[in-house]
């Protein structure tokens, strides 16, 4: 099964006439794993096939091409292959794309997380694929996530403690996915939440698909004090909640595992909660799927993953694609 890069982050399969996560003029079908900027096609001629939440997010983020929704587990047959979407556990609507054709099978992970984020449709993978194209954002053994329940209670505790001492808690989390996951985890506290505008407009999709985001409204500078605040890390340097005197800041991201982020962001707490799998989960997943070949993308350190796959006697190669480091 031949494929080549298209654009910065897409793949085009010339024999199959399809592309993944990127526009190609000759592709009749473009399958989109999820709606993050480094996976979403922008070209207006794109015929995008994706889950319904993904298509809704894409529209909200300015996608103007045509959109065709697919359900998880549903198989779409084209002239040359059949495509099935599997829930990727990364953000709402995120899918792994499974291609079956005469020349073999291929699983393209997009971004994924196993065990799945609770604010998604879960995680499920096919039993086997000949070829695996996997992201490896956290591809170093320094990355190993704590159990999700533990992180969830850290998040709740941070909010409660801050409010008790008269501080306004601010969670720094990426607009799409992480922000809503944090809100979902905080919902049981039952305290009003305000979310930064860019993330707010995406929340309705979560409502539509029955994910409880608690009692939330759009960020409003004048009366944000005393609420739980959610914003991307970049918002702080643009004056977000700068009128509130007593704040406590928690940075929620896989990158929070690195101590250096504390001073870079002047955060009070680092909560390493990621929407990607960690290094150990990645190797385990590869072993379980046992493909003939693994292509590694979205990492500055493919050699490390290759080194470990070699020990498992799994053939692998690096496929250079640009990742956008979301904060």
């Amino acid at each position, binding site marked *: 099964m031949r494929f080549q890069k298209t654009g910065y982050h897409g793949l085009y399969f010339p024999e199959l006439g399809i592309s993944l996560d990127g526009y190609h003029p000759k592709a009749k079908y473009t399958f989109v794993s999820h709606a993050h900027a480094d996976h979403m096609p922008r070209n207006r001629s794109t015929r995008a096939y994706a889950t319904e939440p993904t298509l809704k997010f894409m529209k909200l983020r300015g996608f103007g091409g045509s959109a065709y929704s697919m359900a998880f587990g549903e198989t779409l047959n084209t002239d040359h292959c059949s495509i099935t979407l599997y829930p990727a556990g990364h953000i709402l609507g995120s899918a792994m794309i499974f291609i079956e054709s005469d020349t073999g099978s291929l699983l393209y992970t997009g971004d994924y997380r196993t065990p799945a984020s609770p604010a998604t449709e879960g995680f499920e993978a096919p039993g086997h694929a000949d070829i695996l194209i996997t992201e490896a954002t956290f591809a170093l053994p320094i990355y190993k996530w704590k159990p999700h329940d533990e992180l969830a209670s850290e998040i709740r505790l941070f909010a409660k403690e801050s409010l008790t001492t008269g501080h306004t808690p601010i969670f720094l989390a990426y607009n799409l996915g992480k922000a809503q996951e944090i809100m979902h985890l905080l919902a049981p506290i039952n305290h009003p939440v305000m979310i930064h505008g860019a993330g707010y407009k995406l929340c309705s999709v979560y409502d539509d698909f029955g994910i409880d985001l608690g009692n939330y409204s759009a960020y409003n500078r004048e009366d944000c004090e005393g609420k739980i605040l959610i914003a991307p890390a970049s918002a702080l340097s643009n004056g977000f909640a700068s009128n509130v005197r007593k704040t406590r800041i928690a940075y929620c991201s896989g990158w929070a595992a690195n101590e250096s*982020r504390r001073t870079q962001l002047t955060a009070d707490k680092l909560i390493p909660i990621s929407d990607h799998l960690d290094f150990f989960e990645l190797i385990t997943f590869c072993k379980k799927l046992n493909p003939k070949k693994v292509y590694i993308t979205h990492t500055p350190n493919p050699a490390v993953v290759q080194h470990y796959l070699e020990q498992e006697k799994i053939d692998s190669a690096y496929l250079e694609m640009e990742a956008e480091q979301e904060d």
Partner: protein
Amino acid sequence: MQTTFLQFCNIVQAIRETRGNNAKINLFAEYLAALKSDSDLNLAAQFMGEGAFSELSGKRASVGSRTSGLTAAEFCEIDYDLVFKPCRTATGSSSETIERLMENIPSAIEKRAPANLTLTDVSQIAEDLYNASGRDNKKALLWHAWEKMKPTEIKYFIRILGQGSLRIGFETRSVLASIAKAFGQDREEVRYAHMITGSLGKTAILARENRLDEARFKLFHPLSFMLASPIESRSVEDIAKYVAEEKFDGMRAQLHTDGKQVKIFSRDLNDITQSFPDIVNFFTERELPPAVFDGEICVYKDNTILPFQLLQKRMGIKKPGKKILNQYPVLFIAYDLLYTENRPIFDMKLTERRNLLEQITGQFNIPIASQNSLNSTDDVETLYNRALEHGNEGLMLKLKESVYEYGQRRKSWLKVKKPGGSFDTIMMYAHAGSGKRGGTYSDFTLGVSVKDDERYEEEFIPIGKAYGGYSDDELKKMNQKIKALTVERYGPTLGLIPSLVIEIEFDEIQVNKRTKAGYTLRFPRFRAIRWDLGPNDVNTLKDVEEYFNKSIEKERLPQNQNPSFSFG
């Protein structure tokens, strides 16, 4: 009961995770106050502010980052080059990398059985490392120590072995504030006792036992220097409250004498007496009463103060021969007096100290810096220009009412320095940052053009490495740009297509035969990122050479009129 190293590390980590200096100080003060034995108190203060060994001992564990990294890789059963190094690049910290690998990797977890080591145990392990020689012996000792530690202990154990900052935003000043707070003592007294004893541990014990007054200044023990702030950063309200001295193009030094013996100390409080036998002779011949001077060592020949670059030829040499002594004769020019008539006088005002200094230098014919009163900023201008003509660096403005603020950099002394030079350079390599800049490329090797230089094959050669002077936003923007320019990767270093032009500023150019260019820049830093310029616009090596020659050959005004100093 003894305190465990783990408890200590947990406090360190808590301080790391606390924002606000007072809250940090309180945490450590509470911990110190609860310690029972002198030994624990001594070690806790020392580990926090000095390292595994007391600064006075001069000992070092001599465990480099490669040694601990290699040991960790073996301990965790991972490949050093292939796995450990990229992890270290990602975190920007070797000790943090090791902590996390120890936490994550099953085969490392299996090997460890935490044993509640005490502070004394850890101090003993450091001692063993000091006594061991060879990487293999050190590795074995580290291995055995780590078997008994939790990951947090391992991280901070490695950091205290480095005899430096723990990198938790808690420096000596804060440790001293904690000691004062823990035992209800005056901060200033604690600070003074520390300066005199040179030991945080001793200071803590004296503070607890209410014996701080036992710490006294002694002749032949160096006192921390009073430092000056750049004038740009401080506003001068009333210029008439200051006096001006020229800022000599030399080396700061503190001279102690009791008439027979002389000792000279450098800015970093090292004994440099041996390098300057001519100064020692000068002072022993005069048989002074006991005294301590603050001043400057300068090369002085034919009535002229010669460039600092020439003094450098004397600085590294332990026992200079006759030839060097004749070629580069030096003088000690005094500008402050810290001890006389068997008592320290740094609590006196500058004017009073100056009077005493003038008496002694007058009586014994010792070089003393000229001091000028100031009435207006025009005076500053005139004196500043004259200082530059003398070949000096600029002016020092000193507050007449100020005491000698040893070890402090405040606004009582202000330096007016000549601006450094600047070049447009090309960015050649980007290096992964460490510490708070971990995870970004923050250090840059900058080059000048040798395209039309027949001596070189290359287009550009490095002239210096700069790691400051840019804003966070600029750093971000550069990092994005660098991504696109990367052509090669050498571990934490990226080789770049020559494209980004950086205007750098520096204090001085020095000859350095070991570099490709033959020159290095002193204190290079960013002035601007020149998005508007390209690789053809950068300065050439010839420009650098020309600048250097000009600065060396510049005529220096002799000292016969309006001198910057006089003989008593």
